């Protein structure tokens, strides 16, 4: 028996010798032809294509490693984030100890004698947390706005697209900085809602705690959803004219159902690819914000903040600048490679440009 995999729909022209019998399914047809048909879903094809992309697979492994380190930071980090160790002082540089492989402080310590490896691990934890938060928020907003805009068109589309125009005109980083200053730099609680441009406020019956990195995440998401909304809108504009949408409409499906069950599944590929780009962008931007001093504030750990703290003496204590930046660089690069792999896997219609 010949073992082969046949893509659904590929077995179009049947052998004339067996065409006389009424054939109902592809499986039957394949059986008649002596081929064992192994059903494979779109996801299975996508997985195969993804695993063919070596760099993406390696990157995914590295990312999973970083994610595990981030999630179990408390268990993995050899020292606490703010723990000062004055027992292993460097004879040459003093309290800040250069990296060496003798079992204590593999990446050295900072000016106050705090283990740098632990600080970086906690930094990665915050950075990844923010990036994932941004990606989820921006993807949800961008997809929703793009979908509504592309599906309904008309005035809704006009208004939403004018809003995105606003974002494209005004330099994004500038807005980010202003918003970061505006939202403040502490962990805080929302107890009331201020009405814009007045001093009136509506008290809330409960308090919403706001973790400071979350503020940065909200600001970044606010910046990143725009481009995704444009992409999704474009997809919806072309897909809503397709026959299967017309069929769904004729069958009496509601708009909501057409959007979520018929069109959206066809947009998953580009959306996922774009989301990975958002994650990488969020990590780089957050690091820069923290570096300039408008991002994540102590006591929360942040890689960008580590770099700027190390910079003051970084020209003599090189490891303080090198390692946190290297972590950012590695994470961003791996995400980009995974994104590239996902593009190959989920978007087979797009010409492979690698």
């Amino acid at each position, binding site marked *: 028996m010949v073992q082969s995999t046949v893509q659904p729909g590929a077995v179009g022209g049947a052998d004339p010798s067996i065409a006389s019998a009424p054939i109902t399914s592809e499986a039957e047809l394949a059986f008649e032809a002596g081929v064992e048909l192994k059903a494979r879903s779109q996801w299975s094809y996508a997985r195969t294509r993804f695993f063919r992309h070596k*760099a993406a697979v390696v990157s995914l492994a590295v990312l999973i490693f970083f994610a595990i380190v981030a999630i179990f930071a408390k268990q993995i980090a050899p020292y606490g984030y703010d723990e000062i160790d004055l027992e292993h002082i460097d004879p040459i540089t003093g309290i800040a100890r250069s990296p060496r492989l003798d079992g204590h402080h593999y990446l050295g310590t900072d000016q106050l004698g705090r283990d740098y490896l632990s600080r970086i691990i906690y930094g990665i934890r915050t950075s990844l947390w923010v990036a994932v938060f941004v990606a989820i928020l921006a993807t949800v907003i961008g997809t929703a706005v793009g979908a509504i805009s592309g599906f309904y068109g008309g005035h809704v589309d006009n208004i939403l697209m*004018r809003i995105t*125009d*606003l974002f*494209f*005109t*005004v*330099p994004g*980083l*500038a*807005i980010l*900085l*202003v*918003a970061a*200053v*505006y939202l403040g730099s502490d962990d805080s609680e929302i107890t009331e809602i201020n009405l814009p*441009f007045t001093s009136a406020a509506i008290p809330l019956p409960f308090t919403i705690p706001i973790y400071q990195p979350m503020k940065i995440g909200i600001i970044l998401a606010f910046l990143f959803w725009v481009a995704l909304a444009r992409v999704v809108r474009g997809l919806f504009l072309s897909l809503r004219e397709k026959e299967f949408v017309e069929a769904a409409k004729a069958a009496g499906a509601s708009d909501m159902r057409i959007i979520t069950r018929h069109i959206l599944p066809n947009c998953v590929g580009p959306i996922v690819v774009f989301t990975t780009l958002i994650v*990488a962008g969020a990590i*780089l931007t957050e*690091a*820069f914000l923290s*570096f*300039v001093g408008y991002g994540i504030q102590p006591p929360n750990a942040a890689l960008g903040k580590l*770099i700027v703290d190390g*910079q003051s003496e*970084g*020209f*003599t204590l*090189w490891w303080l*600048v*090198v390692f946190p*930046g290297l972590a*950012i*660089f590695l994470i*961003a*690069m791996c*995400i*980009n*490679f995974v994104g*590239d792999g996902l593009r190959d896997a989920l978007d087979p219609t797009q010409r492979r*440009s*690698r």
Partner: protein
Amino acid sequence: MLQYVLRRLAYSVIVLFVASFLVFTFVAKTGDPLAALRLNPRISEQSVENIKERKHLDDSVFVRYGYWVNDAFTNGFGTTVLGDRPILPDLWRVMKHTLQLVIIAELLAILIAVGIGVYSALRQYSVFDYTATTFSFMGLALPVFWFALMLQVGVVYLKDWTGYNIFPIASLSSVDPGTGIHFWIDRAHHLVLPVIVLMIASIATYSRFMRASMLEVVNSDYVRTARAKGLTEKRVTMKHAFRNALIPLVTLVAINFGALLGGAIATEFVFSLDGMGLYYISALNQNDPYPVMAWLMVTATLIILFNLIADIAYGYLDPRVRYD
């Protein structure tokens, strides 16, 4: 065409007004630009009050925005809260510096990226192509400010090691730069590291773009026709393919250039170059809405203009594009 441009411009004016009002509100509500003065024991309560009075800091945001619009149109964006410095001359000065940096970096980046992109496309899947692709992925993932710091660290360590300082690691000029040709040599020396930093990100983007665009053209019908006619390979690539592959890049470069004129914020910040980006950050640090707004208006206008230039250039270079 003219109608299209006019419509875009009219629309941009509205966008600018909305953006300016929103940003003004944010900055005005954020903090107190006089906080530093209040902490200074040598400055009396009365003089702080005077500044407050003169700058209308106690009025509502709407009124203050009105004063700002008035200043922006009649008074060259007004003066700063602290020190009453006129904003426009400062803005021109930093703009000149940013222009020097950005123009040099972008020109070099375009030259290098076009070379890499075209060669990668012509030798697709070669070792060179894979290397270039890997490097551009690295370039895109590189945190710009960190790369700048790494260069500085490298130069400092090299100095410790060899005793010779190859590049200055900060500012635009030496303390005593001299005049004429000496001044410009000194300036060029100071700009080497910032230009490298700025170039890397641009090269990574442009070369990927150029490669994709060149690949598309090389596989198109008219290039096959050109080959079929028996033209030399050189003529086919240079005259037929290359020229058309450049068109999309023009758009990208124009848009990117417009955005960079607002200051390569990260690069200028790390190298403390007295350019637009650093100007913006320091204005923001002082919570002073006026310079922040002036910067924003100039930058946003430039972005709008360069987007328009990109569109027009595209229509000019590619006659298939029509505006409606």
